[in-house]
Structures are given as C-alpha cells and as structure tokens.
C-alpha cells in the first residue's frame, strides 16, 4: 500500500521539473519560514498583550501606553507576517507540490475561509487600533479579541495544511470516506494539537524578547520615560520565564506525539530545541533586567526558532521516506537567467532598498522630532533609486531583445 502511495506521490510531481537543485529550495524554504514564524509569534504575543493591557489600563497609565504600542506593533506585524509567509509558501510547493496541493484541495473551503477571516481579522484589528485611546470604551476590546481569535484560527488552518501534507496514506480516506467521494473540501481532517499548541506557546517568549528589545530601543526618547521602560523590561522578563516554562511541557508532548515509526534521528532537533529553550529561559532571567541586552536576547531567539524550522523539515523528510519520496531526485531543468534574476534582486533590491528602509525607520524612530538623514542613509537612498532604475532598464532592454528575437522567428 505504501509503495502505491509512494508511486503516486512521485507521479504527482510537476512534469516540468524544477529550475535549480532541490536543496536550494529546501534551504530557502526553511530560512524564510523562520522569518515568517518569528513575525507570527511576535504578532500574536503583542496582540494578546495589547488586549490584556487594554483591560488593565485603569490600573496604571503604563498599561495604557503599552497597550497602544502593542496594538500598533501587532498591526505592522500582521502585514509583515503575511508577506513573509509567501516565500515559504512558494518554495514548499516547488519541492513538495504533491503534498501541499493535495492537502489544500482536501480542505479547500478552509483555504478560502482563511483568506476572508484574515481580511476580517485584520480590519477588526484596525478598528481596535484606531479606537484604542485613553477614553475608549471597554467593549471596543471585543474588536481586538475577534481579530486575535481569527488570527489564531488562521494559524490553525496553516497547521492543518502542514500536517495533512505529512500523511499521504490518509488522503484517500479523507477524500472518499467509505468510497463516497466528497468534493466539498469542507473539513479540517487532521490536527496535531501538541505541535500546534507548542508553536503558538512560543509567542510568549517571543513577546518577551520583543519587549526587552523595545525597552532598549526607546532609551533615548523622553516620551518613553525610564520608569515606563523599566516596567516593560520587568514585564518582559516575567513573561519570558513563564512562557518558556509553559512551552517546555508542550514540546515534550509533541515529542511523544510523533509517530512511533520515525527513527530517533527525527527526534534529535526536538531535544536540541528543548535545550535551547532552557538556555533561553536562563538568559532571560540573567540578562533580562539589565538595560542594553535587549537586542542580543532578541537575536538569540532565532536559535530556537531555527531549530524548530529545521525540525519540522526533518520530520517531513522522515515522514516521506517510507513512501520513497525524496526531494533530491526531483528532475532538474536548470534555468540560470531566472535564478540570477532572483539572487540579484534579493541583493540589489532587498539589500539596498530594503536596507535603506529598515535603517531609516530604525534611526528615525529613535529620535524625537525631525530626523535629518546622515551621509550613509542619504547615499543609500540615492543608491536605491538608482538601483531600481537600473533594474527596470535592464528588465526592458533584456526583455525587448528576447521579444524581438521571437518576433523575427529565431
């Protein structure tokens, strides 16, 4: 039976093959997913905290200020987690197309629901964002709760797709239970709560790291006075420690929940992840209350996330092995020009224009009042426009030459 399923999996691969070696897509998929999940976790954490702080705002003005800040953070976070989700979505379906497309079709309605709930959730969050002012009525918090609830639902749908992809031997049972074909795509067929809840629970440590970095970032602004920053830092430290404590048992649950036939090597990254979380908790405890360590801690948070991303992929590779599905034997028809296009765009546009934006926002946010660009930023700005102009020119000149070649029939 598994051999059959495996044979079918391999025939379902796109006959066009892929334009670069499979490992390249795999690496990009894992790396870009780290970026996606980092923003997912920080956003969910910030959203939750902004709601809690909203309901506590009458206790102390710090809560009010924090609630507004987190609402805004979550607003920006959602838009970034969406675009950052696009890259792993793209790369997954290059090397795991049979799995991804089948899982999607089998829960097709939920994919459509995903889109509309994301839109509604985001709009609802915006309502909260615009109304989260000191004089706002308490019931406006409902908009935030609705927004967060829908984001969580969307995360669950994502999880289901990932998890259904891992079980090709179940697909036919889901599609045609008892031989009755169901083309409605109306169910979420498989949920692994341990995995989902663990991933979501990481939003507490993620939020903590964000708070610690936040407290450092605003050290030069008088509208975020020292006692407010200390308050935020202490809160972050507490959330970080408690969060790690909650995540660990969930992680062990997931480890136990893995299918028995997976070899021990499939568990290794999970154990490493447990170690990384413990170390992170200790570091948060040790350094969390010291000013100036926020960025270091924030970036060290990428270690557990990287391990988790790696682990997910190791699980997938192991789950596919019995079916004889191995991405490394995917047919490659190398396409150099488009590969170069991507990497040059990543460097030129992502690096220069992206760098310009990030640096500019970073610096401008630190000062009160107007920010006068320094030489580096001013040059980066000019360079961004030049590089973009160049990119577009090359795009047209190159494209036109190909187009003409077609037109005169070479």
């Amino acid at each position, binding site marked *: 039976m598994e051999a059959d399923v495996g044979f079918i999996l391999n025939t379902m691969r796109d006959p066009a*093959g*892929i334009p670069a070696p499979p490992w390249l897509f795999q690496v990009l998929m894992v790396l870009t997913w780290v970026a996606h999940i980092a923003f997912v976790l920080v956003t969910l954490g910030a959203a939750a905290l902004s709601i809690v702080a909203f309901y506590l705002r009458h206790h102390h003005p710090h809560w009010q200020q924090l609630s507004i800040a987190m609402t805004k953070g979550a607003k*920006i976070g959602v838009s970034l987690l969406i675009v950052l989700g696009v890259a792993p979505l793209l790369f997954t379906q290059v090397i795991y197309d049979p799995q991804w497309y089948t899982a999607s079709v089998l829960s097709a309605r939920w994919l459509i629901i995903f889109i509309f709930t994301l839109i509604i959730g985001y709009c609802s969050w915006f309502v909260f964002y615009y109304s989260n002012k000191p004089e706002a009525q308490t019931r406006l918090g409902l908009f935030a709760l609705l927004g967060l609830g829908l984001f969580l639902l969307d995360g669950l749908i994502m999880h289901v797709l990932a998890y259904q992809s891992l079980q090709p031997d179940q697909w036919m049972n889901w599609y*045609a239970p008892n031989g009755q074909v169901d083309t*409605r795509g109306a169910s979420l067929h498989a949920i692994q709560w341990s995995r989902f809840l663990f991933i979501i629970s990481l939003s507490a440590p993620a939020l903590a790291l964000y708070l610690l970095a936040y407290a450092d970032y605003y050290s030069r602004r008088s509208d975020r006075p020292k006692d407010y920053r200390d308050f935020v830092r202490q809160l972050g430290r507490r959330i970080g420690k408690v969060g790690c404590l909650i995540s660990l048992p969930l992680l062990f649950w997931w480890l136990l929940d893995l299918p028995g036939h997976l070899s021990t090597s499939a568990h290794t990254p999970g154990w490493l992840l447990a170690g990384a979380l413990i170390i992170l908790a200790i570091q948060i405890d040790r350094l969390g209350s010291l000013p100036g360590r926020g960025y270091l801690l924030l970036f060290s948070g990428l270690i557990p996330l990287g391990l988790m991303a790696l682990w997910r992929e190791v699980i997938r590779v192991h789950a596919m092995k019995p079916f004889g599905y191995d991405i490394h034997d995917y047919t490659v*028809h190398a396409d150099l020009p488009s590969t170069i*296009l991507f990497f040059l765009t990543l460097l030129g546009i992502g690096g220069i224009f992206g760098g310009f934006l990030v640096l500019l926002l970073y610096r*401008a946010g630190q000062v009160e009042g107007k920010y006068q660009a320094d030489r580096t930023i001013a040059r980066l700005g000019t360079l961004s426009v030049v590089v973009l102009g160049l990119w577009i020119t090359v795009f047209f000149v190159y494209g036109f030459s190909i187009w003409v070649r077609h037109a005169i029939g070479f």
Partner: protein
Amino acid sequence: MDMLGMYPTFYVPEIGSAWVMGIIGTIHVVASHTSVGAAFLFALLATKAYRESRPELMDYVKRYGKVLLVFSYIIGSVTGVGIWYAITIASPRGTAGLIHNFVWVWAAEWVYFTVEVIGVYALVYLIEKVDRLTHLKLTWAFALASWATMLLIVGILSFMMWPGNDSWYLTGSTNDAFYNINFFAHLGVRTGSMLVMAVIVGLMIAGSMREKSPALRIEAVRTIVPMGILGGALAVLMFFYYLETLPYNAKVMLHSHLLPRYAAGMVLVVTITFIYFLAAWAKPLFLRNWITVPLFLFVAIIGVWPEERTRESMRKPYVAGQYIYGNQTIARDVPGKGILSEIEHISKHGILGIHPFIPETLRTVSEENRREVGELLAKISCGNCHSLEPGSPLRNLPDKFHGSTDVELIAAFINGPLKNGSVPYMPRIDLPEQETYAIATFIASQNLGERNRPSMPVDTTQSGATGEQ
C-alpha cells in the same frame, strides 16, 4: 500501473471554483492596481511639494497614504495570497505548472513585495518626520518598486494566455515563457488602468478634504487628473493592440461569447470615466464623494469583473501556456521540459484507469454505480469550467445540453466534438465509451431532476453544439 499525476477535485456547486477565483481576483486587481498607481501619484505630488517648497501638498499625500496603506496594500497582499489559494484548489496542476516555470520570478517579486510593505509604512509615517529630500527619494524608490512587482507578475499572467511562439516549448527557458507575445500589450493595459484607478481614489480623497483650502484642492486635483487621462488613453490603445496578440481560441471565445456580453459595459466604463475626469479638471471644487464612490464601484464591477472573467474565459480551454487544459490534463508535448501530452494515454485507459483518486468501487462502471461514476467524471473533466446544476450561473452543463434527458444525444456530443477536439474553447476530451456514457447518464439525470433514473424519455432538442449565453 499507468497512473497520471492527477489531484483530488474540489467542486463548488452552482458557481464553480472559477467564480470564487473571479471574486477574489476582482478585489485583488482593484486593490493592487490602485496601490501601484497611487504610488506614482504620491511621487508626483511629493516632487511638486519639494520643488516648489509647498509642504501643505503633503497633507493631501498623508491622507491619501492612509487609504493606500489600509485599503490597498493590506487587502492587496491578502487577496494576492487568496488568488494563489483559489487557483491552487481549482487547478492544482495548472498552478504547479506555473510555479515550476516561474518560481524564481515569483521569488523576485516576493523580494519586492516585502520591501514595499515596509516601504509603505515608512512612506506614511515618515512624512515630516525625516528631511524632505530623503522622503522624496523614498517616494520614488517606492513607486518604482511597486511598478516592478507589476512588471514581474504580468509576464506570468500573459504566459497563462500563451507564449505566442514555439521557443518556450522547445527550450523550456523562463526567458522565452516570460517575454511572450502579449507581454508588452498586457503591461500597457495594466499600467494605464492602474493610473486610472488611482486617480479615482485620489479624487475621492480630494472630495473628503473639504475643510482644506480651495487652492490646495484645486492644485491636487489638477495635478493628478492628467495622469488619469493619459493612463486611460494608454490602457485603451494597448487594449486594441492586446487583442491582436491573442491566440485563435481566445478570439473565437471573444467574438462568440464575450464581446456580445461585455462590450457595451466596457465602452460605458471608458466613456463615463473620461467625462468624469474632464469634469473634475474643470471644476475641482465640485467633487462630491456621492459621485466618486459609486464611480469607483462602477469601474470595479462593470470594468474589472468582466476583465477578470474575460481573461479567464479567453484562455479556455487552457489554464496555462496552452499546454495544460482546464481539466488538469497536459494537452501537448513540451520537449524543452520533457513534458508529454496525456490525451492519448487517457483515451486508451480512461480516467478511471489513470486517476489516482478514484475509489476502488467506482473504478469499473456497472448499472448501479453509473450515475455516481458519471458525477465524479463530470466533476473531474468538466467541473473546472461548467457547473453541474441546472440553472446555475457558470455555463451549467444541464442547460448547455438544453435540458436534454437523452443519454444518447448527450453522449453523441461528447463522442463527437469533444472527442475530436473540434471546439476551439474546449479541451479535447477523448474517453472510452463507458465513461462517456456515465457522464451522459449523469447529465441526463440532472435534467431529469431525479436520482437514479437515467431512463430514456424522448427529447427532441437539438444537440448542444451551438452554445448560447
């Protein structure tokens, strides 16, 4: 085993998955084109504000920016993912084909898009927060980047129509697929219409700024309206050129089904928009949102919806590059990629023999399961383009057969024009006798309105070879 790489089928009763796609697509096109166009209007106004040292113009930009931010970018990005999901579940193999040809192009587009989402926040929040020259650079870089995303996606979209020459089939190179025959025409249409849409939104905003000084409003309106008129002219011109670059099947579809239905609406949209722009130019202070907002909806519904449906219909019978049919079968060889046509294989073994997702109980047709098999086969081989319920809006099959309950007659159509591939806008669907008969039985029973009674009452309607609608 002779299985082919088919996927399970997702079917939406009544409207088919095609309309789901059309709805999300329309929202997406409106949102994304508006935002790209707005980026240029932004840049134009910011340049004027900078050159003439008139910071008050930035008030307008700021207000415009909030709408751009909330409405366009976010809705645009979510519905962008939405289109992708919709095509995934409607045409998994078509989507896979596009992804595997264009993954790097999409990845490059993703780089742009990520940078733009950061950029849109920078643009709006940093007005008057950073020095003006830096902000001006930001605006221009942002506008160029926004357009670049359009450049990248248009190549892929126009390949969906067709490459227009043999190169790609022979080389399999992304270059040949991307810079296809209708690329430049398509780009012109989109670039022009994005300006038009942005100007309409711009006028909405001008209309809601009635507390600002009349001079500012006049200035803002007169700066942007010419862009809208030029954009509209470009779009119309390029549209006629675009029509010239279409494949034969698309022209047939256009003349027989689409123009009769949509042409009047399109002319109306162009005329009304043009008149409105002229009026706005002449009397900027008379702008009222109870006119502009309906105009925007009018363009979206009478302009963009048919545009989306037309582009999708004209592609028929293919979903991508004239090598993948709407019913998820590979229609021809593509030697450059080592892709082989699946038509012969299917005609030899039937769908029941090659499709991995068929329950064992339905693999062989019997008297008892014929209708059930027919339903599944109809969903697989017709459901991508036809709904199966009588009276439903997506070219529903029962009505296409004029309500016929005559199994032989229905089977004759499938065994005739469909088997030979002689209808330009439909795939060649060449099935073994028993499968044809199962589909015909199902359609007849749909018309009969009763389950499991595919008997043969007399029905004298002619065969459905000349579709109407």
